[in-house]
């Protein structure tokens, strides 16, 4: 089998996104490298979701460049999981098979890969259940399984636990860790400091559409360099 083409590093330069006269992303430059878990941290409204949607290709930038290491990555090469999972009105397994079909996986392989993906997130028992009546936590695990089944090189996760209770959030964090261990690059946004501490290798601190800090998690939490990040950490700490 041919060596898969390498998507990373992802180079983002002078990226801006404006809509209705508001600047949501303001001249952001950064590089995403393979191997580590990158967490985009920042308060609500900082532009975390917009930044990931731009990188994933759901939004078109107003200015600047997004350059992958290969031209035009296919959806199966870089996947995204949203805060609120969108399930199709069919069974859990059929939801995964649908994604595999769009990714060009041959029909005879889909059932096996979907079953394996469900097993990895502990959902094999509800394979035949209609996806939309599952609990919020189960739906998010299914969304992770659906993205993971594509075997992407990069997975974007937009506040994947923000709508979940602590137990379900913990399960999702465990799955994210497992995905990381299979070699998929994790790029995740959160406003939850505890989660960032548990999962991050690198931190990108975003505030008002600008990257204010880019550091390893250890550095960032020991000694944030900007006043905003310091305030964010201190403001949040008592509750985490």
């Amino acid at each position, binding site marked *: 089998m041919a060596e898969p083409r390498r998507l990373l590093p992802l180079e983002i330069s002078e990226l801006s996104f404006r809509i209705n006269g508001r600047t949501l992303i303001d001249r952001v430059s950064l590089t995403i490298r393979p191997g580590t878990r990158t967490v985009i941290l920042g308060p609500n409204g900082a532009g975390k979701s917009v930044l990931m949607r731009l990188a994933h290709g759901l939004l078109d930038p107003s200015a600047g460049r997004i350059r992958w290491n290969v031209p035009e990555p296919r959806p199966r090469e870089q996947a995204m999981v949203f805060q609120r999972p969108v399930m199709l009105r069919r069974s859990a397994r059929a939801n995964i098979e*649908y994604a595999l079909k769009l990714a060009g996986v041959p029909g005879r392989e889909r059932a096996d890969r979907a079953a394996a993906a469900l097993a990895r997130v502990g959902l094999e028992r509800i394979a035949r259940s209609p996806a939309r009546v599952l609990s919020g936590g189960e739906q998010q695990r299914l969304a992770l399984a659906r993205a993971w089944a594509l075997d992407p090189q990069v997975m974007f996760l937009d506040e994947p636990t923000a709508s979940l209770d602590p137990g379900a959030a913990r399960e999702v964090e465990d799955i994210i860790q497992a995905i990381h261990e299979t070699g998929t690059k994790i790029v995740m946004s959160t406003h939850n400091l505890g989660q960032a501490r548990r999962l991050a290798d690198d931190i990108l601190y975003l505030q008002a559409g600008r990257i204010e800090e880019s550091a390893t998690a250890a550095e960032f939490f020991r000694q944030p360099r900007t006043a905003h990040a310091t305030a964010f950490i201190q403001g949040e700490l008592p509750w985490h």
Partner: protein
Amino acid sequence: MQEISQAIAAAAALVGSGDSKLVAIMLLSLRVSLCAVLLSALIGLPLGAALAIGRFAGRQTLTVILNAFMGLPPVVVGLFVYLMLSRAGPLGQFGLLFTPTAMVIAQVVLITPIIAALARQIVADAWQDYAEQLKSLGAGFTQSVRTLIWDTRFSLLTVLLAGFGRAVAEVGAVMIVGGNIDGVTRVMTTAIALETSRGDLPLALALGLILIALVLLLNTCAHLIRQTAQRRYG
């Protein structure tokens, strides 16, 4: 008052006896309107979904026209189809005027805008939720249209039932293009119109009762389907 109650009693007896003429009229009605719904679904559902999902020039205009055409007066549709199918018309050579096929065509023209406009609304609402996820998974336009039609299938089924209800209860268009020929193009609504004007109230009433029962049955089905689907599939 007594005349009416006698007519109702006679109508009930007619329905109960399974009168062959009555049954034939009823079956033709069903056949014509089911064909019309089927064809309208094949045109209207993809059209409505495409209008909901697509971003192309003229989309707004088309949507406005479609919504306006929901209220097309049946007699005007009948007249239009009549002109098309009449000997001198562009489709005159096929000799379809005063046949059940002509009635199907008229009903298709009448209900396709209804089905398309209602489908557009349903799919547009679902698209709000689905758009990012489907784009993320790499679904193109055609794939998205197909996925959305399948995912809103229970709501769309009630749209089709609404279209059928409109088609089967309509009289103006089928009267003009069908001609209400006994045993050939006489359907429930045209028979009711004729028998009423001729004073044969029992037959008219019997057909009327059947028509009402049919429409009630359809709406009950629509309601149950939605409820069950909502519970089972979310």
